[in-house]
């Protein structure tokens, strides 16, 4: 026991650092200080010692006393044994035979002499408690006997043995989930070469959003089956299918499965609706600018055209020969032949002037009567010119020789002139958004002009007289107003449902109006039916520039910037209950597009089923 205590230093088992700052490291048995060695060994000393001292390897530094101790041979041996994990004592035998005290053999003497416990004779109370608890639990049904685990062999049986078709478990709103689409050639591990992506397609595929891609994978080709790798998205796809099955809202979608041919309406065959113009037969050349306006004489023998090159030309219809040319000195906006067959006069609108021309292209009597009409007023009193802004004047000199008879000077640029069916009245249009002076009605025989409107109702696009009754049609940008000239009131306002009306034509019966608009539409109004269009025709691809009715045949035509003239058959029935039948019968092409303009004006021959069209390519064409 004593040896356990180190008595060389009496400070006890304390950390040596505590004496760090002192010159001693403790006290010996006598109570004297044990001093530290004066000079601490540094590394060099240590090294020298290691090199020179043969006992170095068995020298141990004793921290307690601060001295070095050289181990004896016995001590070294002990250290070695301990390091090998052997007992320190050399004489200790670890393999002594075991004595079995507690064996199956019953001995005559007990191992211990202790008497048996009392609790080994009496039943256990805690056990009783536990058992009674279990019994109680069983009684109360809390504790159930161990369940017999079925191994799955007998788990399945014939579930549908008694198939009862009367069970309709699901109500009729049940929508079965659609099956997964079957794979196509694309998905093959070795697809035909055309199904593989080219570099462009591949780049496109990579750029696209995963939702937009046509194929959810890139087709690949492997030269043999062993090279096919696992598909990395397999679990993903299955999971997505699961999500679809229980999360995706289902909706019954009616898919129209129609034959597109059935959608096309059954119309009477164009063949049965003849006559109508079908082919281009004549081209009238001569103008150098775009031909804005054309007009056919009531006899159907002459055609007048006004062009941007400042000339009005008169053509013979049958021979396409230019009979006469009048230089009027300005871009001609509109020409209109007097519809009265007993006179031969032409109204021409250019700049702010309306000219009345007598082309003298008729027999003498007609020329005479037209001269008479022009001069009738001359003999009478001088025109009073009530509203001063319009000035009538006679043509003189050179102009007179060319056939110009009258000049009607307007305050603003005139865009359109129209004759009344009787041939005495003449309306001119000066579109102007700011004033009510947009339309003038001139009376030729009395050389009088009047402005029928006192209020501005919008930019007037074109006007037209009713062919029979005293009505006056005024088309503004978005609507057509119909005025009763006798009562001097508006009778109707037609809504064209288009952005900008370009042209208008009145049916010779007077009950129907068509108007074309710059937004490619053509609307047919049935005046008896409604103020809304009876039919909107969207046949043209570009702005509609001109529309016209045939006087005798049930035909109408529309000219458009897309270079085509579309002739439609429009039968109007006398029976009010029957709606007009509109059938497009022919698309006439021929005009060349110039400056994005195609056909500018269209008009029918008064007696034949022929149609004239004038275009931006400076030609006039006759389709028969």
């Amino acid at each position, binding site marked *: 026991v004593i040896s356990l205590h180190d008595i060389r230093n009496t400070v006890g088992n304390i950390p040596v650092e505590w004496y760090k700052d002192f010159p001693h490291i403790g006290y010996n048995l006598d109570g004297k200080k044990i001093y530290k060695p004066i000079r601490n060994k540094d590394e060099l000393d240590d090294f020298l010692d290691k090199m020179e001292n043969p006992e170095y390897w068995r020298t141990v530094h004793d921290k307690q006393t601060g001295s070095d101790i050289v181990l004896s041979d016995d001590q070294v041996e002990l250290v070695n044994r301990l390091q090998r994990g052997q007992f320190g004592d050399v004489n200790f035998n670890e393999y002594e035979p075991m004595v079995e005290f507690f064996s199956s053999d019953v001995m005559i003497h007990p191992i211990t002499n202790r008497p048996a416990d009392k609790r080994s004779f009496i039943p256990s109370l805690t056990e009783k408690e536990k058992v009674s608890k279990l019994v109680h639990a069983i009684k109360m049904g809390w504790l159930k006997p161990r369940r017999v685990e079925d191994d799955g062999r007998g788990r399945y049986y014939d579930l549908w043995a008694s198939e009862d078709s009367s069970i309709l478990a699901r109500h009729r709103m049940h929508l079965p989930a659609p099956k997964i689409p079957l794979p196509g050639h694309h998905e093959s591990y*070795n697809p035909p070469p055309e199904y593989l992506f080219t570099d462009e397609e591949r780049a496109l595929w990579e750029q696209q959003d995963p939702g937009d891609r046509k194929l959810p994978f890139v087709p690949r080709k492997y030269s043999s089956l062993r090279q096919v790798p696992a598909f990395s998205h397999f679990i993903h796809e299955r999971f997505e299918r699961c999500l679809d099955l*229980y999360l995706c809202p289902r909706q019954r979608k009616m898919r129209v499965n129609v034959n597109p041919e059935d959608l096309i309406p059954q119309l009477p065959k164009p063949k049965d609706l003849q006559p109508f113009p079908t082919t281009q037969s004549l081209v009238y050349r001569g103008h150098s600018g775009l031909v804005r306006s054309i007009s056919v004489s009531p006899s159907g023998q002459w055609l007048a055209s006004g062009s941007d090159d400042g000339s009005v030309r008169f053509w013979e219809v049958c021979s396409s020969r230019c009979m006469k040319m009048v230089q009027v000195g300005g871009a001609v906006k509109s020409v209109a032949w007097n519809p009265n067959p007993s006179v031969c006069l032409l109204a021409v609108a250019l700049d702010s002037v309306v000219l009345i021309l007598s082309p003298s292209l008729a027999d003498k009597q007609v020329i005479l009567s037209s001269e008479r009409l022009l001069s009738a007023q001359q003999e009478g009193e001088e025109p009073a010119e009530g509203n001063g802004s319009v000035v009538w004047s006679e043509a003189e000199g050179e102009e007179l020789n060319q056939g110009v008879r009258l000049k009607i000077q307007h305050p603003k640029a005139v865009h359109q002139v129209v004759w009344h069916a009787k041939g005495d009245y003449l309306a001119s249009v000066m579109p102007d958004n700011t004033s009510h002076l947009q339309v003038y009605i001139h009376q030729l025989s009395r050389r009088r002009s009047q402005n029928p409107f006192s209020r501005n109702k919008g930019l007037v696009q074109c006007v037209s007289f009713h062919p029979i009754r005293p009505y006056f049609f005024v088309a503004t940008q978005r609507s057509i107003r119909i005025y009763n000239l006798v009562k001097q009131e508006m009778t109707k306002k037609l809504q064209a449902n288009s952005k900008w009306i370009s042209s208008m034509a009145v049916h010779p019966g007077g009950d129907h109006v068509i108007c074309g608009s710059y937004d490619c539409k053509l609307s047919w109004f049935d005046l008896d039916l409604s103020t809304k269009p009876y039919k909107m025709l969207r046949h043209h691809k570009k702005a509609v520039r001109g529309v016209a009715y045939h006087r005798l045949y049930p035909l109408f035509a529309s000219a458009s910037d897309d270079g085509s003239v579309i002739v439609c058959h429009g039968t109007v029935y006398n029976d009010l209950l029957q709606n007009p039948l509109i059938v497009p019968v022919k698309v006439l092409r021929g005009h060349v597009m110039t400056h994005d303009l195609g056909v500018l004006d269209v008009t029918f021959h008064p007696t034949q089923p022929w149609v004239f069209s004038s275009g931006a390519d400076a030609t006039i064409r006759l389709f028969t």
Partner: protein
Amino acid sequence: MGGLQKKKFERGSATNYITRNRARKKLQLSLPDFRRLCILKGIYPHEPKHKKKVNKGSTAPRTFYLLKDIRFLLHEPIVGKFREYKIFVRKLKKAYGKTEWSAVERLRENKPTYKLDHIIKERYPTFIDALRDIDDALCMCFLFSTFARTGKCHVQTIQLCKRLTVEWMNYVITSRSLRKVFLSIKGIYYQAEVMGQLITWVVPYQFSHDHPVDVDYRVMATFTELYTTLLGFVNFRLYNSLNLVYPPKLDSNAESEPKEESEDDYAMNSESYLEKLSALSASLARVVSSAEEEEAQLDHFPTEGEDMEKMEAREKELKQQEAQKKLFEGLKFYLNREVPRESLAFIIRCFGGQVSWDKSVCIGSTYEMTDETITHHIIDRPSVDKQYINRYYIQPQWVYDCVNAKVLLPVEDYFLGVTLPPHLSPFVEEKEGDYVPPEKLKIMALQRGEKTGNEQEEEEEEEEEEEEEEEQEEEEEDDNGDEEDDEEEVAEEKNLKKMEEQRSQGKSLQVKVTPGKLKVENKARLEQEEKAEEKRLAIMMMKKKEKYLYDKIMFGKKRKVREANKLAAKRKAHDDAEKAKKKKARK
């Protein structure tokens, strides 16, 4: 005015739907439980016709369930089981917390379980209904059976899936109902016809899965739970219909051979049993050991006219099917170790072939590689050392292509080291106007019994080209008429212009009379043009709505044609390149 004021959203469609949250509250279930219930009972959201009305005027995106569906869920006994389970979990936690291990054990022993039998019966009142919906079940079970025991799902589930899929495959083999197979980059598709229902499933290639992190395995496990029950019942019924013993037993007569060699050193009986089954090499035991199956003969009914034709067609089809069933009969296959054993063994056995493999690959091989009677050796490596002279060494694609073509294809294209012909999907049925790859045409010709030489191929190609041209012509036809007219006019105008110029220059006109040319009018063409124009004019008169629809349909059609043309063009370019290469190589 009398009567109560009508309130909004108290009648009509607003009362027929219920949002998910409200449904959950009504059922008093947590979201995971609700999800499980929906999956098991097959309840899915519905998209109402007028969403805003149903949503009480709001346009917030919500999922709606039918109120009837939710009411139907209210009476589901399984909801009670869910609650029991919740309580069980709570008790178990408590027992753990108190370290009462005996209680834990007791609780675990009495873990509440539920059965899905009644749900299956309810969802699929008839057997055919169940069969119709078994595609997804099969796909899922086949996927789960390939999972490793990595803790993504219970081991029991994996084992059950394995067992059920093996049972299914054995049924398909015995009933010989496999129709189509397809090697895709995703996996192998199989299509079987069971009781008149086409059933398609896909099996992934045999690789360990790279489990994605963004997949909720609980959802998949719930589905699998349902699907395993369904598949088990379906299997039972199918086995019964063929008089087979369920659970399947190997036929003791036929089985004798493999039994001898293996038993003692292999594994426990119960384990090796499933493996032997999954080897797919032995036939199954029947309840009544019947002799050969009687041939299915179509009864003849006295019929007339069209019915007769239909009958004949059906008979023909049936005959073809019978022939397909016996496709590999009499052939003896040997699988090399690098080919997908399970798939090939399944297919070959489905069509009556005999198949074996190396003993070390899998249990259940029936004959050795040295067997002299082997006719086809399936191998998927560039070369082999020792070749037996009396058998074909072919690549595995041959088997799949034969099944799809329903005839034994010439083996030359599939020999060792030969570049394989493309593998086509048997599921694509080309309609008129669709693109048909030339390989398919070849196979179709083979099916018809024609022999394909090189000449014929070329002819076919030519034909194709012609067809294409025709198509293009048709497309252009509409415009052609006008163009021609235009051209004539242009020419005329040029002439006129020339004349005018000459006139304006003051030259005297060179008057020249040339004999006119007789213009031959193509009557058929004219008629066609007329018809086309009529159609165009009629289209102009279409109503806006119909025009829209018409345009859409035509757009779709045109797109289809465009795609077909694109494929054809691609193919042609490819073939040309190949030819050029060949020529170069020859030089």
